[in-house]
């Protein structure tokens, strides 16, 4: 087997992709994990270029490395979470078991590749025909003819995703109102009730002024 230039590119991309993926798992800080994941995604985009799928590579960079990772970093920033916690023996056991299970899965996958297998019947989109029509155009033709119905269903999935995200992430004003409005008067009512025995002789005017407006919300609630 002679070593060609694409093979060298493949090895470089594969090494950087695996390193990026490993660092996602090994890094403590979720922001650093997200940045390593971007490296992994870009390595995959390079692989798509090697596989003569330049349009997919562009989509990979724009959608994954762009949109999805920006969403991730925004949420990390929004939540302002601390680093991962080490909780002693349980954490070590989970780590050992997790990597052991992953290694077992890797050996199973490797056996699947090493067993004798062959490709199914070939299609008609050769590299020459792809160069004639262009990659994006070929995919578009397939998407709008053969896969038209799944494509329409895709639009529905995106709509559900948009509505679901908005509904879930929205601060519900009715919940906040029911949580904060009765809580504040009840606290002042408890404070005045507890403080009432002390200033009985000192300030009788203040307790009579406070009590009507504090007991009013309790009666309605």
């Amino acid at each position: 087997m002679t070593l060609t230039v694409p093979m060298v590119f493949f090895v470089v991309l594969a090494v950087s992709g695996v390193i990026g993926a490993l660092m996602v798992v090994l890094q403590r800080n979720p922001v650093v994990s997200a940045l390593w994941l971007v490296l992994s995604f870009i390595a995959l985009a390079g692989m798509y270029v090697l596989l003569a799928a330049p349009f997919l590579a562009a989509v990979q960079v724009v959608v994954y490395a762009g949109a999805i990772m920006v969403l991730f970093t925004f949420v990390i920033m929004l939540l302002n979470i601390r680093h991962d916690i080490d909780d002693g023996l349980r954490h070590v056991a989970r780590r050992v078991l997790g990597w052991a299970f992953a290694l077992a899965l890797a050996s199973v996958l490797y056996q699947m590749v090493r067993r004798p297998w062959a490709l199914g019947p070939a299609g008609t989109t050769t590299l020459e025909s792809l160069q004639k029509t262009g990659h994006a155009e070929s995919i578009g033709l397939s998407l709008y003819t053969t896969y038209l119905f799944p494509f329409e269903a895709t639009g529905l999935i995106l709509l559900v995703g948009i509505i679901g995200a908005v509904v879930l992430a929205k601060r519900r004003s009715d919940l906040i109102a029911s949580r904060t409005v009765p809580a504040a008067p009840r606290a002042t009512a408890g404070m005045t009730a507890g403080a009432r025995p002390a200033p009985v002789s000192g300030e009788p005017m203040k307790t009579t002024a406070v009590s009507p407006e504090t007991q009013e919300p309790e009666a309605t609630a």
Partner: protein
Amino acid sequence: MNPEAMIPALAPVAPVSNLPGGVPLEWYLIFAGALFVIGVAGMLVRRNALVMFMCIELMLNAANLTLVAFSRALNSLDGQVFVFFVMVVAAAEVAVGLAIIINVFRARETVYVDEVNLLKG
């Protein structure tokens, strides 16, 4: 009857690679398998819901790479169309999933899945 004898294409020959540049198909499969395994390991090892989500993205990308590699090796674009559908599902899943994580954080002040244990017996 031996199932491998029923399919004549399953003779023990190495699959012929017609990928650009002569990169063997197995290389792509092994790399995709490595990415998938790392994603599984991350799901099992990490307890941060955000990092677990990233590992799901890693696994989806590994599956995407096998789809593209096979589609190129078979001279067919169908696999690459499916990559689009996977990307759409991943985008919608991330949007909804991150919204759920934000909601959990508002309710419990944590994103660590071990601390969200209301259903634990």
